[in-house]
């Protein structure tokens, strides 16, 4: 379906388009200019982004919201349920477990792992918590697709190693540690501190 290799930013913007489209009525129509306005970008950019992934809408008529939503969801693999294992159920991990937005996008955190004895065997936000050393069996049995790491930096590589030996092929890392994964595992890092550190640059260089 993907015509030429889409830049990663295009895929990210697709996710944002989808967020707005979810708030709109199924039968409504929207033009690339209107969609662009919602995101603070240009209509050309929207059309270019969509062109990487296929033929959307009718020239001159725009897009039907429901149809566009369905097509983008399909391109992004968001037309199904993705199961997640969360490693690290501290403050951040607990907040992630309680976040309702994941479900809306088809992400289901099915299981959590933590080393703290007072958490093991309990359910937090309805999610059962196990010791990380039970990962391979539980991940296999629960058919988990994605791993999220929310442990302190010093434990992040071990968490990743355990996810990888459990067969996980995609990891979202919230720890500030730089972790190593094999070539066949897709890793995305979400480093809050470094993102925050970029902000003053834009303020002082206004």
């Amino acid at each position, binding site marked *: 379906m993907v015509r030429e290799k889409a830049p990663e930013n295009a895929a990210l913007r697709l996710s944002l388009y989808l967020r707005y489209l979810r708030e709109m009525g199924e039968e409504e129509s929207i033009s690339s200019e209107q969609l662009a306005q919602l995101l603070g970008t240009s209509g050309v950019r929207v059309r270019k982004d969509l062109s990487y992934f296929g033929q959307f809408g009718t020239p001159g008529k725009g897009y039907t919201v429901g149809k566009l939503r369905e097509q983008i969801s399909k391109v992004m693999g968001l037309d199904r349920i993705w199961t997640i294992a969360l490693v690290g159920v501290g403050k951040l991990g607990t907040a992630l477990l309680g976040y309702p937005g994941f479900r809306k996008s088809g992400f289901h955190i099915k299981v959590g792992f933590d080393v703290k004895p007072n958490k093991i065997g309990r359910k937090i936000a309805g999610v059962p918590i196990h010791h990380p050393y039970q990962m391979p069996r539980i991940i296999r049995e629960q058919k988990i697709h994605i791993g999220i790491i929310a442990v302190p930096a010093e434990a992040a590589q071990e968490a990743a*190693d355990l996810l990888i030996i459990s*067969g996980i092929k995609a990891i979202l890392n919230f720890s500030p540690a730089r972790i*190593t994964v094999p070539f066949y595992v897709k890793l995305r890092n979400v480093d809050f501190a470094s993102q925050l550190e970029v902000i003053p640059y834009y303020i002082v260089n206004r």
Partner: protein
Amino acid sequence: MKKKVLLVDDEADFVEINKAALENKGYQVVVAYDGKEALSKALEEKPDVIILDVMMTTKTEGFDVSRKLRRHKEMQDVPIIMLTAIRERMDIKWKIQPDEEWLPVTEFLEKPVAPEKLTEKVEEMLKRKKK
């Protein structure tokens, strides 16, 4: 000059038996019982081959040791034979394979490994290294 083998495992019996078998074949054997000791002995002793267990202080400590070793220029070409019972003990169904970045070892062997098989593997690694 005798070839030097660094044998890393937290199981004292395993170390003792395999050390004896390797010495019997004419190797000089240096031992370490955890990852930290393994790293310092590797850099100090500059072994020709390293035999490295996985499950020591943590269940994946050996993985981390292999990555840290490869960051040192003098350790980049030293064969590492990784030994483990991790698949059996952690109920892993698929085979773990070496990976240039994530698991930079030369061979991945599953325990139990007979001392004579391990000695043969060391010989094979040294021959391969010569070529």
